[in-house]
């Protein structure tokens, strides 16, 4: 075989050249079999770098290409495109990763250079055996699935729908709106959360291009980019959405209690009705109640039926069942949002033990004008607090819980201080480690708060206790904290303590991500395609992310990411077609003994036994190229294209040749 291989060694500035002796590597590559040309360049991925390769191909100097640079996960696509532009089949290209897995991770220059040589030899030997493959194209279904109806999902759905594309928006709660619907004010501008969110929720409900499925969950996702098949479980509401007009007669008469009516103020905090048939809050979209079967008397002992009796439109249907609906979509946007950290395990803060220690979300609901305290800040006994402590970083920046910074707590804590000062006459203490006020207008907001007589204490609270030492502490919660700026341990008696609980990926995320084959990082959030340059895409084509499923973020960032995700989807839809991987498996019919082992190995049921021919056959549309069948075939009849045995053998030989 006389292949003409061109090897291109990238310096990547000093990223590679700083640790790898480029001259030695180039000399070495020149001596390899079938290598006809070796070039080096500062940045192979730059325009001039790419042109170098393209020109060599066009000039007929080479018919195979090896680029030794960064990871294929970074630039394989770039250089494959270069080959295509030069008129060479893109599968006649191989990459040697001498940056991420070589120059960046080793210390000794000589050893790093040796490793780079081995990796290049492996790629050269491999590329010599690679064969041209033809790209396949599939159409893209213009319909999109958005999972999650918080502000991220709402924004993404509206953007797509306004562009004239069909959207299926699913939300597992009875109403869309997510966490934002629970807030009273938003930082730092203090605009009313409901005032800015409600119009968006209403347009989602009314939009002709949006099919809204609330109280629904994803059951299954199959297929691939452009052609996903979706199964959704519409949970039984026990209220017929077609008939219900949201009049509220049902919950006004309902004797069941979803949220305790007795108990202290904090235990019965709720935005919507506290009854068993309820709407989560008054601006709910859709404005249709749902029955909580856990507490509904009818479901517990069959004895009630008041809601059905009072409903003038006969919308209550106790015998309703879950329903499975199926859709086909081309793309998916994940917007599953967050949940807040449960502070109960942090025993020393006393949540669950002390009445007046509450979480941030509880405090939000208490402040919300539409909540059942009417926006009043009250202690558990119904009195107004005279002093409130706000404890930052609860469950965040802590190796026992979540190591990351939850990003929004500092700002919402400052917002609380402002709201408290505005509403009641109370002393407010902010216990913080670092104040992170990084966004537009945030530092200015902090500046404003400093002028509002909020007492800032730099120190992570060690403990909240009820044991008094002096008279003034009796009957109070006492915060023990080191004021680190003063260098003294302080005990501060307070009426109420608000824990700034951090943000975590929603508990439903792992299941949904699993269905989309999207990876979750060790922090529990989705791993984006690239931390800098691919923040809305994922490693799975056709699956995009928006909002807090990727990382904790505030409303402006969430909305921006949602719009970015929808525009990424739009650009896919506009293309109408997409190329998909050609590296599938194929069966050599002469060798196949018809044992059918591969049929059961394939996770996608892409291999079927052909009764007539007595051999197994791969359905390329379904095959995703994992290669498990090739590895398992006892007769060696299956080859995984582009990952053939001989190609991998050549690669092994190459890395071990030194």
């Amino acid at each position, binding site marked *: 075989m006389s292949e003409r291989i061109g090897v291109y060694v990238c310096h990547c500035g000093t990223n590679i050249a700083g640790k790898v002796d480029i001259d030695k590597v180039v000399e070495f590559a020149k001596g390899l079999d079938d290598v006809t040309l070796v070039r080096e360049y500062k940045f192979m991925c730059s325009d001039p770098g790419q042109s170098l390769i393209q020109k060599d191909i066009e000039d007929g100097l080479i018919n195979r290409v090896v680029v030794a640079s960064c990871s294929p996960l970074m630039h394989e696509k770039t250089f494959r495109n270069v080959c295509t532009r030069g008129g060479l089949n893109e599968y006649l290209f191989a990459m040697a990763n001498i940056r991420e897995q070589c120059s960046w991770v080793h210390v000794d220059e000589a050893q790093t250079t040796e490793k780079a040589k081995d990796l290049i030899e492996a790629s050269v030997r491999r590329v010599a055996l690679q064969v041209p493959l033809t790209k396949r194209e599939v159409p893209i279904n213009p319909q999109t699935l958005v999972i999650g109806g918080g502000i991220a999902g709402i924004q993404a759905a509206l953007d797509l729908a306004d562009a004239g594309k069909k959207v299926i928006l699913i939300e597992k709660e009875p109403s869309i709106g997510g966490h934002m619907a629970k807030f009273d004010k938003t930082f730092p501008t203090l605009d009313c959360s409901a005032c800015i969110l409600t119009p968006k929720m209403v347009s989602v409900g009314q939009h002709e291009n949006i099919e809204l499925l609330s109280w629904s969950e994803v059951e299954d996702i199959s297929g691939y980019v452009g052609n996903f098949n979706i199964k959704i479980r519409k949970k039984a509401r026990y209220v017929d959405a077609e008939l219900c007009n949201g009049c509220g007669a049902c919950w006004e008469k309902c004797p069941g209690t979803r949220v305790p009516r007795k108990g202290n103020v904090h235990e019965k905090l709720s935005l919507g009705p506290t009854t068993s048939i309820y709407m989560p809050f008054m601006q709910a979209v859709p404005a249709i109640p749902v029955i909580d079967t856990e507490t509904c008397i009818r479901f517990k002992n069959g004895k009630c039926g008041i809601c059905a009796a009072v409903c003038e439109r006969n919308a209550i249907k106790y015998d309703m069942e879950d329903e499975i609906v199926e859709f086909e979509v081309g793309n998916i946007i994940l917007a599953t949002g967050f949940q807040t950290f449960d502070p109960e395990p942090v025993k020393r803060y006393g949540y669950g033990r002390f009445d007046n220690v509450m979480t941030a979300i509880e405090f939000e609901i208490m402040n919300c004008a539409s909540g059942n305290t009417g926006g009043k800040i009250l202690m558990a006994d119904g009195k107004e607090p005279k002093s409130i402590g706000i404890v930052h970083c609860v469950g965040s920046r802590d190796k026992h819980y979540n190591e990351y910074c939850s990003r929004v707590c500092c700002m919402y804590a400052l917002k609380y201080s402002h709201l408290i000062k505005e509403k009641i006459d109370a002393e407010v203490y902010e216990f913080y480690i670092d104040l992170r006020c990084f966004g537009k207008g945030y530092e200015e907001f902090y500046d404003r708060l400093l002028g509002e007589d909020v007492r800032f204490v730099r120190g992570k609270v060690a403990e909240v206790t009820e044991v008094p030492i002096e008279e003034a502490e009796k009957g109070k919660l006492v915060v023990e904290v080191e004021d*680190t700026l003063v260098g003294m341990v302080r005990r501060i008696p307070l009426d109420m303590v608000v824990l700034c609980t951090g943000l975590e990926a929603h508990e439903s995320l792992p299941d949904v991500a699993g269905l989309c084959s999207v990876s979750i990082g060790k922090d529990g959030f989705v791993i984006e395609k690239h931390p800098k340059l691919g923040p809305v895409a994922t490693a799975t084509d056709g699956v995009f992310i928006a909002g807090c499923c990727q990382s904790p973020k505030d409303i402006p960032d969430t909305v921006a990411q949602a719009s970015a995700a929808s525009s990424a989807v739009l650009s896919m839809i506009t293309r109408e077609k997409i190329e998909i991987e050609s590296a599938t498996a194929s069966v050599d019919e002469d060798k196949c003994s018809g044992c059918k082992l591969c049929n059961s190995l394939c996770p996608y049921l892409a291999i079927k036994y052909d009764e007539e021919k007595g051999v197994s056959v791969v359905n390329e549309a379904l095959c995703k190229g994992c290669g498990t069948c090739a590895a398992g075939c006892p007769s060696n009849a299956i080859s995984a294209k582009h990952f053939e045995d001989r190609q991998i053998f050549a690669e092994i030989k190459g890395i071990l040749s030194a």
Partner: protein
Amino acid sequence: MLEREVVYESVLDHDFLDEIYSLPGGHEIKKCIQCGTCSGSCPQGAVMDYAPRKIFSLIRAGFRDEVLESNTIWYCSSCYTCAVRCPKEIKITDVMYALKRIAIKEGKAKAGRKAAVLSKTFMNMVNKYGRNHETELMTRYILTADPFSAFNFMPQGWRLFSNGRLPIMPHKIKNIEQLRKILKKVEELGEI
């Protein structure tokens, strides 16, 4: 505390941090974010020259003498509250032990003179018998550290004795030789 107006780099010991870091318990000390959880949690925080958080600052800045001569390390009662609460999982109690050892070794345990005597007496007792003998320990300790305080301890001693809780004779383990061989070997190997 030493008095200085301006601290010159030349008087600081920038290797001090690495010295602590290389100890098994010193791990992660570089990651301290100065949140103050340790100081706030410490039952002795208020009476220490520097509460634990500040000790970490001083170590990192290289204030070797200030740290070793402080009373902080001797007020640590090994309750481990700081260690389990530290958001960076620094083994603070172990760091305090390390500081105690360095202070004793370098004769800087002024603030902890009594504690140093007590610890050393205890160690000698164990090396001698294989077990602790509380009666002898306290007698020796009081005589060495502060003979005039003997009367201060007497009521407690009497309370123990009169209730049949104070053994007169020490118990020596049978295979004390084995223990000594082990200790001798450690000495040869050198402390970590």
